[in-house]
């Protein structure tokens, strides 16, 4: 993995104003640290020459930034209208039972964080579940057990789609 400072400088080069690189910079930092810990935010602030408070203010606005530690894998279940009409509530409930958590929560072994999220933009192919930012459409409760055992056996994805 390239070092975070260099990655941030590469992002800055795409914009006439370095402030605009804050979302990609936060994303890289989250990939490096696993979540946006105070050190991660310091590193972003350092790379962008902005204050850590500004970085926190921006990060806390968006749902995809984690301001608390998360598991090695993140599973997100859409329960918005179209998915809910075709059974996403049952899918979420079954995930909760399989993992022994109530969303949002992380399984006791620290492997999987389960979240309920708003519309993911796959409404006609619901229920939609996003696994480490990879969409799985037409999701059925039977798909849960094999998915979870696979995730339990897989390490944290280092750089997703970077």
């Amino acid at each position, binding site marked *: 993995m390239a070092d975070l400072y260099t990655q941030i400088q590469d992002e800055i080069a795409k914009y006439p104003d370095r402030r605009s690189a804050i*979302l990609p910079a936060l994303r890289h930092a989250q990939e490096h640290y696993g979540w946006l810990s105070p050190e991660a935010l310091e590193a972003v602030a350092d790379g962008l020459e902005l204050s850590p408070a500004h970085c926190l203010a921006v990060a806390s606005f968006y749902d995809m930034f984690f301001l*608390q530690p998360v598991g090695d894998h993140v599973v997100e279940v859409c329960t918005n209208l179209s998915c809910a*009409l075709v059974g996403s*509530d049952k899918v979420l409930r079954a995930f909760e039972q399989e993992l022994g958590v109530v969303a949002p929560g992380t399984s006791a072994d620290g492997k999987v964080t389960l979240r309920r999220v708003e519309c993911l933009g796959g409404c006609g192919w619901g229920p939609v579940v996003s696994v480490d930012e990879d969409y799985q459409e037409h999701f059925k409760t039977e798909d849960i057990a094999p998915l979870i055992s696979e995730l339990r056996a897989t390490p944290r994805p280092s750089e997703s789609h970077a």
Partner: protein
Amino acid sequence: MPEGPTFAQPDASALLLPFAGSRREIAEYEANGGYASLRKAVGMTSEQLVDEMIASNLRGRGGAGFPAGKKASFLAGGAERYLVINGDESEPGTFKDREIILRNPHMLIEGVLIYLWMIRGTAAYIYIRGEYAKEASILEGAIAQAREKGYLGSPLLGTDYVPQVYVHRGAGAYICGEETALLSSLNGERGQPTAKPPFPAVSGAFKKPTLLNNVETVATVPLIVEMGGASYAGVGTEQSTGTKMFSLSGHVRNPGNYEMPLSATYRDLIEGKGGGMPEGRTLKGFVPGGSSMPILMPNQLDTGLAFEAVVAAGSMAGSGGVIVVDDRTCMVRFALRTAEFYMHESCGKCTPCREGTRWITELLRKLEAGLGREEEIDLLLDICNRVEGNCLCVLGDACAMPVRSHINNFRSEFDEHVRLGRCPCPDDAPMTELYPPLMRAPLPLVTI
């Protein structure tokens, strides 16, 4: 294993996606006439291109339906000007821009390059919602291929103009689809809307004049250049020209994205393309343009898909996300799920939206839990009326309008919840859970 997205077969009227499957490789795209419109456009002046757009009468595909040519003509002059493409697509029920990117990414890139040339833009930024990770990498791939072919990053086709195109990923916030919020986000701030004026045409990306359009709008540009604005305007209705992508979801046999001429009707879409209701179910209503739009009733199925037709029917065409609802569905739950979304996505800047969406949600949750009182249904309507039209952006209206329509169209169902002190719907009704509010991630406990 769950299957991936399923793409519908196009019919003879399709213009934007007239083929089955996808054409992600530039060679495939060019073999089918791709990038010929860019060559043609480079032989035209900016004024000629804007005139073609005006002649096409193309209306923006992002939700508001603003005429694209007119918008382009408003762009202020200056040495530095930007093009921003809105790929935030987060309105529940909408997934069409995603299909365009998955199946025909080069059509979008070609549209971006034509538009960039038209405004001699400094650069283009495609703002794509953060969750679309795969789609962002497809666009990065398409841009790299176009760069290799010399369409961007170097002087364009014998001119001295050098186009630059970047993908900018969001990070999960519906409000960043609203143009001023998107620009705040792109400018490195929290994604909150700002007051207009100044309009983006004067001060947008990096505080410079900016032309901002939806993915589908820009993907249609190569087609207009190829056909000529006037012949494009021959498709559809006089006020709503061309074809448009509609996202069909909910209780239909064949959900998916369908490209329809704007002269067609919701019946053509829901019954014709969608195959109608699943076995044994009847239609209760349909949301015509994303979850923020008032619901239409079964006797309104013959409403046209055109912008003006939907307005005449008492709703709006919005994003083109059509959600079909069957007879088992509890409309209190449906309204609650709608309101919860807008409460979660309110940026918190103005009071009627921040507080109104929360009160609407709380009252609906109480009603669904069987704890509501008769006067609270009128209170709900009263709150909707006070929110609508009183907010900085239209997110507040996006909550108030559909909820009010659900109450007014299905009032007896709401009353029944109060009378019985519980939800009267059968156990197999969709949406089984009453969730606690979705909160944004809490702040860390450590000070920095």
